[in-house]
Structure formats: structure tokens, C-alpha cells
């Protein structure tokens, strides 16, 4: 059914949007991100309700250490930049550069998760777990859900590297990398909210 005009238009689009089916999957992924925004919105609102319900446990101010949190922020924000460079390489058709940037993104993400786990373990050593209070339950599930998303993203990106090695940059792999980058930027934005509303607010508020 496609008219000649449509084909000309398609040729100007980036590769990941060129195929109708693949482009539709990007739209679908945006819809998925909407649901994920609402998951986090629900978790943030729960945290907002519970952030003072510390029972006999520690308060946010007593518990949080800004050093690891700053390191996590640095790692995750940098990884958002590297996946951006990866998409830039993809648009220029440089598969090796794309894989290198994706690999670097994975490393930075792994650094983030490691730091976060270390942070949680140090809380557990102080008996500050979700058994302690509603505040810590809400904190753990909010930050933990974000951390689980990042962990899932790391494994996803690893499978994408294998697919890139096998197929190179095609309409389909390009779409997959592009949706992964959307996901990764989204997690970055969520982290900025966690950093502000949970950590900064807990330390200063």
C-alpha cells in the first residue's frame, strides 16, 4: 500500500524508525515506559507517606551516607552519556564503536549496582532492613525496584551485544538498541528523583 512519497520519507528516518513494524515497537515501548513511570509514581507516593514512619528504627538523616550515593549518581549519569554516544555511533553505522560504548555502559551500570548493594549491606549491618519500619520498607522497595531495573538492563544489554555481533546494525538490532537507550535514560531520570526526594531530602529536610 505504500506510496512513493512514503518511501522517500522513510529513507530520511533513522534506521530504527525505517521499518513500519520496528517503528511501532518503539511506540509500544514508550507506552511501557508510561506504565513504569506509574509504578515509580506509586512507589514515590508510598515513600512520601511513610518517610517519617520510622517506628523504633533509624531516621533518614541518621542512616544515609552521601558518599556512596554521589558515586552512584556519577556512575549512572555517565552511563547515560555513554549510551547516548553509542546511539550516535549507531546512526553513523559504526558497529564496533556502538558495541564499545554499550560495553562501557554495562560496566558503569555494574559499578552502580555494586555500590548500591554495598550500601544496602552496610544498612543491614546496622539492623536497618525492611523488617525495621515502614519508612525502611518504603525506602527499600523504591530504591530496590530502581536497582532491579538497572540490573535487568545490564543483562538485557549483554544479550544485545551478542545480537549485534551476530547481525550487525540492522533495522531490528537498531530498534532494540534504541529502546534499550530509552529505558536506560528513563532509569537515569528516576534516579535523579530518588537522589533529590529520598537522599537530599532525607539528609537536609
Amino acid at each position: 500500500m505504500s506510496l512513493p512519497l512514503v518511501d522517500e520519507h522513510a529513507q530520511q528516518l533513522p534506521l530504527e524508525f525505517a521499518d513500519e513494524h520496528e517503528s511501532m515497537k518503539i511506540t509500544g515501548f514508550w507506552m511501557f515506559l508510561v506504565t513504569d513511570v506509574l509504578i515509580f509514581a506509586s512507589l514515590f507516593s508510598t515513600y512520601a507517606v511513610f518517610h517519617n514512619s520510622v517506628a523504633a528504627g533509624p531516621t533518614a538523616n541518621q542512616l544515609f551516607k552521601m558518599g556512596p550515593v554521589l558515586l552512584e549518581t556519577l556512575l549512572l549519569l555517565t552511563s547515560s552519556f555513554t549510551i547516548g554516544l553509542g546511539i550516535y555511533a549507531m546512526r553513523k553505522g559504526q558497529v564496533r564503536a556502538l558495541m564499545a560504548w554499550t560495553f562501557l555502559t554495562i560496566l558503569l551500570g555494574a559499578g552502580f549496582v555494586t555500590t548500591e548493594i554495598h550500601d544496602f549491606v552496610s544498612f543491614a549491618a546496622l539492623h536497618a532492613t525492611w523488617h525495621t519500619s515502614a519508612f525502611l520498607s518504603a525506602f527499600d522497595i523504591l530504591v530496590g525496584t530502581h536497582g532491579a531495573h538497572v540490573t535487568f538492563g545490564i543483562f538485557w544489554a549483554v544479550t544485545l551485544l551478542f545480537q549485534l555481533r551476530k547481525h550487525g546494525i540492522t533495522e531490528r538490532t537498531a530498534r532494540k538498541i534504541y529502546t534499550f537507550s530509552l529505558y536506560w535514560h528513563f532509569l537515569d531520570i528516576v534516579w535523579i528523583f530518588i537522589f533529590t526526594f529520598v537522599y537530599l531530602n532525607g539528609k537536609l529536610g
Partner: protein
Amino acid sequence: MPSFVPYLVHTLFPPGVLLPDILLIDFGLICAGIGVIVLLTKTRRWGWLWYDWLTTVDHKKIAILYLIASLVMLMRGGIDALMLRAQLALPTTHFMPASQYDEVFTTHGTIMVFFMGMPFIFALFNAVVPLMIGARDVAFPRLNAMSYWLFAFGAILFNISFVIGGSPNAGWTAYPPYTGLAFNPGPGENYYFLALIIAGMGTTMTGINFLVTTLKMRAPGMSLMKMPMFVWSTMVTSALILFAFPPLTVALAMSLFDRLFGSHFFTLARGGMPMMYVNLFWLFGHPEVYILIIPLFGVFSEVVATFSKKVLFGYPVMVASIVAIMFLAYGTWVHHFFTMGAGPAVNAFFGLSTMLIAIPTGVKIFNWIFTMWGGRIQTTTAMLYQMAFIPVFMVGGATGILLAVVPADYQLHNSYFLVAHFHNVLIGGTLFGLLSGLYYWWPKMFGMKLNETQGKWAFWLFLIGFWVTFLPQYLLGLKGMTRRIYTYPLGFGWHDLNVISTFGAFIMGAAFVVLVYNIVWSLLYGERDLTGDPWDGRTLEWSLPSPVPEYNFPRIPVVHDRDAWWAMKQKGQSLADLRPEDVHDVEMPKNSPIPFLLGASFFVLGFGMTFAWWPIAIIGFVGIILCLLFSGFDYDDHHHLKADVIRQTEATLGRLQG
């Protein structure tokens, strides 16, 4: 090992599931299961079952799967209802123990909302939306199959609870602290949370799928304001699903964490707050009410136009109304718990926002009536349900407005007045709409009409049974009877009305039996639909033969008008004048076992978590990972349907020229 076996038996079969009636059902289910296996083996149908149904990604077949599941669930939920009504008619005889009564009202509500209403709606979406917009499938066919299997295995997980381990018993809303581990040990509530999380994921994916389908896959020329009303209602419902299910998932997951891992979200100790659950639940729950009615507004809009032989009156206003309802739906959730004590300002806001919804709904009622006005009305079964819906739904709406009046709600909260109100809208609106849609689109799905005489019998029994059941319940509510009680003293003057109500419930039970007879009879002897357009329809699905071939449209139509097929007929055009050179190769999605296996893995994970048997849960989790990995690396998910095959099919149907 010897101590392991008694533990296992006691965990899987506690006294609560060893009641005589349940054992009888167990026996019946085992016999039925063996019967099906024998039948499939004898007729060598296993391959047919696997290749044609369990691995299918065809939206038309998935629609039939949804329909079967929802009719089975309608029976289960209906039997639950009859058990409840039997107990309430005989309050002194202990027809059921109190604990079983709690379980039955919980499963009745949960099944009717999540496992009957929603899949029935998705059956209609799948059956006709791609056909109405001139598409060959939904946007993501494999995801569509995954949605179905997540729903189906969620439903199975929920339904085995009454045989293995015990049913949930905290009401369909599952409020804490009723669901807290301290007050409610045993696996019942775990079943509820896990089944709803699994089925809810499927529903969310359906929402994404149909939103993208309706946004991106419409035939050339079909602008938004040329979409049939049912497609509009699909789009709005999908958007509601997208925004409603995440808070539910979060609330369910937190409750599950409280039970399984000892967190303190909704507990009474250590700062937990049960009202947070109630807020999150109804933040989902109120939009859910509209998820359950807006698709049926779409059905009624199609049915009323077709059987009045007129265009739908005030189409732009109808669109504006459902879009307005979509937005208002998010501003009313507190009206489910005015008695929480949020204060007069908050309650006044939510009372007013609730009343506001009556305006767009009222507009729609008028438009349906004006569509019928001066039309040549054909009283088919589908149309009868439409005509019955208007007064029934108006009563339901009016009592809803009464409940939105905050001071009145303090009296009526959790009384039988409320029970009568929501059954009034859910039966008069949702169920009548579903049945209207079933009778309307059945020929398109199965290639034969449902017998009209039998259908009208079922209709009248449903309508009369409905009023006999629920009118007394309004009075009972005003007399102070509260919901979820299994007995009451005879001196309260509630008994007579309860007996009448139970009588009505059994009339509806009879209606269901007639409906099933109608379906079976029609499948065997029903009038075949040879034209593809038995109702002289208006929208594109009626331009196709019944049942529709795999590829739907041999050539994608170009749409110029709102009632596209009607306009084509008026101009003397037809899609049956296909020339051989118009047909090209078509790319179709390939069948895949992954959706079924993914659903099964989620079932194993859910079952393991229900009993906190972690090795089983881990097996399920690994299964999920493997399915996702396989899906990610599978690039071979389409096949080309050759133009010759399509030409041959169309020629057989007599739709090819020359």
C-alpha cells in the same frame, strides 16, 4: 522423609478444602479432566490443540480462547453467587460454614471482575478491533498471545486455590489488615496477590497492544474521527488500563511482601498504614470500573446504530463523553471510602467529582435514545440487551449519585444498597453489554448465528432475574443489612426480601443455562452466515466473510467515511470484487510456543511463592528467563503468505473476479 508427607498433605489439603461439596467438585473435575484427555487422544487432536490453539498468535483465535475462559469463569462466579444467595435465604441452617462463606464472596467478586469481565472484554477487542480498522492483526501478535497466557495461568492459579491450600477470604478488595499474616495465615491470600499480579501483567500488555494498534494500524483514510465508536472505546479503555494497573501491581506486591518477607507497609506494627493500601487499590479500582463499562458503551453504540438503521446520533459528543469519563475516572477514587475520615473538604471534592461523571454518561444515554428515535428498530437479541440496558443502567447510575452524597454514604456505606448499586451497573451495563456484543459478533467469530428464539428466552430470564434479585437488595440496604455477613437474626425483617432475592438469583442461573444451551445448539445446528454481513452492518468487519480468513483483508481497504462499509454499500461497492492482480504476498506473524511456556513458567513461580517453596519458585523464574532469552534471539518470527494461497482462498469464498 516420613514427616515430610504429612506436612505436604496438611499444607495442600487443610480441613478448609476437604468439605463434602468441594470434594464432590474435585471428583467432577478429575473425571472431566480424564474425559478430555481420553477424547483428545482418541480423536488424535493433541497436535491440533498445540499447533492451532496453544501456540497461535492469530487475534481471532485468541479472541475465542478469551471467550471460552470467560464463559467458564462466568459459570464459576455464578455458582459462587448462587451459594451465597442460598446461604442468605437460609440464615439459620448453616448451609455453609462462615469461613467458607468468606471464601465464596471473595472468589465471586474477584472472578467476576478480573477473570470474567476483563477477558470477555478482551475477547471482543481481539475479535473485531483489527477487522474494524482494516488491519491484518494487532500491533504485537506475540505479545498478544503472551497477554492471554499470563491471564489464563493467573486465572488457573487463582482457581486451584479452592482445591489446593484454601481460597482467599478477605473480599475481592483484599484490604489489610484482613490480609495480614497475623490475622490470615495460610496460602489463600498469597494465591490472590500472585494470581492478580500475573494476570495484571497480561492486562497491561493488552492495554499497550491495543493502544498502539488503534493509534498506528488504521487503514488509510481512517482518521481518528472516522473510527467506529467501539474502536474509540477500545483506545480509551487501553489508556485507562495503562494508567490504572501499575498502582494495583504496586499495592499487591507490597501486600505480598508484608506476608512473605516481613516488611511493614500495611501492617499495624512499626509504622505501617492499611489505608495506604486502600488508596492505592482504589486509585486502580475506580478506573477499573470504567475499564469494565466503556468497552460496552462502544458495543451498545455499534449495536444501536446497526439495528436502528441510522448513523449514531452525535458521534463527536459521544467521543468527547468517553474521553471526559476517562479523565474524570482518576479524580474519584476516595468515594470508595468516604468513611475513612479524610475531612469535609476532601470528601466534598470527591463527592462532586463523582456526580460530575453523570453528565457525560447522561449525554451518552440521550444519544443512544436519539439514535433509536425515528429509526427502523429490529428487536434482535443484541438490540434487546441494548434497550434493556438503558433503564437498568439509569437506575444504577442514579443510586450511584445517591451514594456520592457524602452524608448519605455514611449511612449506606458497605450496606446492601451499595451491593445492589454496583451489581446494577455491572450486570445492567457490563454483562448486558458483553452479551449484546456476543450475539452481535458471534456470526463473525464462528460463521453461524446464535439462535434468536433461545437468545430471547435467555435475555428475558436475565432481565427478570436481575430485577427480582437486586430490587429487594436496595430495600435490605435501607433496612440496615450490611454486606459480607453470612447470617442474621430472623427478627430483623430481612428474611422475606432475602428469599425473593435468592429466587431472582436462581432465575439468572436458569438464564445462564439457556445461554449455554443456545451456544451449544447453535454451534451444532445454527443458521450459517454465508454473506459475512448477516445484520446489514455498518463497519468494516462485516465486509469480510465469516469466519474471517487468517490474513483478514486480502487488500487493505481505503476508508472515506465514518460508517465505512455502509457507505461502500450505498455506493454499490463491495470488497468481493477483488481482482487477482490486487493480491500480493502478505507478511504474517509466525506461531510460537513461547507465550504458552512463559505463562506456564509464571504459574510455576506463582505456585512456588504461594507456599513459599523457593526451589519451585526458582524453577519458574529460570523458565521465565529462558523464555525471554529465546524470544530475544528469535529473529524468525514472520512468514510470507503467498499471493497464490490468498487468491485460492478468496476464489473458494467466491470473492475473486475472473
